[in-house]
């Protein structure tokens, strides 16, 4: 787990862009998952989709403030597995949240204290949503611990 501090705007922008890319992938993925969910599951997916849209806007604004252009969203994202029912839709939602959690953990390694704090707080939300969809908590969200 060797991590070096990502210093300066040059280091912060790529980390923010990675988080933005993860948010864009989550927005796309929740669209797929929502199509296989009903009732409270669908309502939760819609709520989470909205939160990811808000997070995307926040990240894009942060990137612009640092003088860079936010990376554009892709038209299509490769899903990790086939989604064909409610169970696989919920598994996809957990997978998406895990991906965003990892990306926010990348922000915690930058030198800017405010960005670190933002990343740490953001990953609490994504970890909670991952736990909801998975049905269980994890000891180290976003982190690969042997």
């Amino acid at each position, binding site marked *: 787990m060797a991590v070096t501090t990502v210093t300066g705007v040059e280091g912060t922008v790529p980390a923010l862009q990675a988080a933005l890319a993860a948010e864009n992938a989550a927005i796309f993925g929740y669209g797929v998952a929502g199509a296989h969910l009903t009732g409270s599951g669908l309502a939760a997916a819609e709520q989470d989709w909205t939160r990811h849209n808000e997070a995307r806007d926040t990240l894009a604004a942060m990137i612009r403030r640092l003088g860079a252009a936010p990376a554009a969203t892709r038209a299509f994202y490769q899903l990790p597995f086939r989604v064909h029912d409610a169970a696989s839709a919920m598994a996809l939602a957990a997978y998406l949240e895990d991906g965003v959690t990892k990306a926010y953990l990348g922000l915690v390694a930058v030198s800017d204290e405010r960005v670190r704090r933002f990343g740490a707080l953001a990953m609490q939300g994504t*970890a909670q949503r991952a736990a909801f969809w998975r049905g*269980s908590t994890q000891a180290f969200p976003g982190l690969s611990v042997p």
Partner: protein
Amino acid sequence: MPDIVPRRRILLASATTLPLLLATAGCRSSDVFAGPDPLAGRPPLGHNVLTLQAVIAAEENLIRLYQGAINGDSRTATREPQQARSRMLRPLLAQHEQHLAQLRARLIEPPGQTDYTTGPTASAAASPGPARVTTAQLRAAERASAGDLVQRLATMEPALAQLFASIAASDATHATALAAKGLG
């Protein structure tokens, strides 16, 4: 064998007379040696070490709280709600024990400092503990822990900051899980 004794004497004499010679020469050992001053005592612990010690102590307290809750429930094990609560708490306790193991693994202290590698949690488990630990207390403790870790990570080196952030996120999920179950 015969030449060992004189060598020991020489070494002993050097160890006792060197500080005296340095003192009479008006210089400290740090003036002679470029490295750390061997006569100045232990160097102060670094910020990362002190913070890790504090976080480890907080994690141990959290574990004690869970152990107290589970032990308290086991004393009233005939009641279904307490059994259900213990079943829910045990996986969360196991994750806190994983947190503690990772934190301890990153703590490197100079010899002679407090040994954090052996668990005071074992003795805590044997103690009777508080009267009854409520789920609300556990939830509050989880929230406080998550908040404290986020406060601390700003000044830590990146790998430790990420570990703190990950544990804080885990604690936040615990707080939500405890709220969702609604067990007293």
